[in-house]
């Protein structure tokens, strides 16, 4: 009788610990660090570059300010909205006009971006230069508008 009882007890103990080797234990983890931080920028909605012609192929150089009201440093990229007149591909940017008494070279749209620190602002200069424009010129005295989109993403 004792042997039977002991056998049943031993059987039960071994049975509880007899696990299926394919069982999986799952733990959950939340990736912390980014929630709560946000990107937010303030950009002007209209920039007028003045007149431009074949004889004077360079427009006014206008100073523009972008404000970063978010909690992260941002990288801002001006982009030409698709469907815009190709003449606006000749839009150029630079952060400063001069540096160390030397003229800062322009960067063409598509190759220019700049950083704006969080809770700060940054200015840059924008102009058009059609000196190297080889396609057909639009009809003279035509007011052309294009949309340049300022895209803001986290700098890191």
């Amino acid at each position, binding site marked *: 009788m004792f*042997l039977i009882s002991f056998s049943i007890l031993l059987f039960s103990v071994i049975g509880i610990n007899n696990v299926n080797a394919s069982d*999986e234990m799952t733990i959950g983890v939340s990736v912390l660090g*980014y929630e709560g931080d946000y*990107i937010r920028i303030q950009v002007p909605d209209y920039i007028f570059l003045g007149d431009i012609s074949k004889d004077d192929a360079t427009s006014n150089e206008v100073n523009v300010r972008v404000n970063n009201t978010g909690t992260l440093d941002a990288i801002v990229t001006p982009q030409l909205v698709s469907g815009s007149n190709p003449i606006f591909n000749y839009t150029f940017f630079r952060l400063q006009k001069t540096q160390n008494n030397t003229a800062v070279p322009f960067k063409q749209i598509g190759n220019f971006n700049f950083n704006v620190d969080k809770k700060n602002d940054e200015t840059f200069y924008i102009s058009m230069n059609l000196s190297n424009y080889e396609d057909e010129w639009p009809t003279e005295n035509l007011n052309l508008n294009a949309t340049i989109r300022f895209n*803001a*993403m986290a700098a*890191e």
Partner: protein
Amino acid sequence: MLWLQNKNRLMRLYFILILILFLISFISSLEIGINPAHIELYGNKGDTICKNVSIYSDKDITVLFDSRWSESENSRNINDYKLKSEEIAIELHSPNRIFLAKNKEKDVEVCFKCNKKGDFYGAILFESENGYASVGSWVHIKINNDNSITGGAIGIVKDNDFLFIGIFGLIIELGLIFYLIKRIKHSKN
């Protein structure tokens, strides 16, 4: 005295002009934002994984949803992100046009279904419909074939030592049962 009065009037006009110009610079601008700025997602091939993002505008505007993807790992230049989601076998499920009421954050659920295994680097963008501003979040999605990693979970498979203990225990149980049966038969005899 007259000159002084004129000077005060001029100063007042000058001040009002400065104030108007100052206000105009803010009236003619758009503020737009997004939270979070980074999205990390893990999933299995064929699963749909989603993330809520919050977008904001200081004006009543409509924004258009877009995404771009890159072969460059972790580039922070949006111009490097030239691929469309269908080019890398990612399906996106999100409202295409979203109306934002001014000064109110709006939650938008963005879902991804990746039909290939691997690491994917992209950006989701919310572009103002009139076009002059957009904000986005960097996206990193890691897709696996098997079920050992799902959502934010890490799966752990038990060690093979437990398999050995299980088999050993089973042998002992069978041996005991055989012995008991033999004892019972012997008792009856």
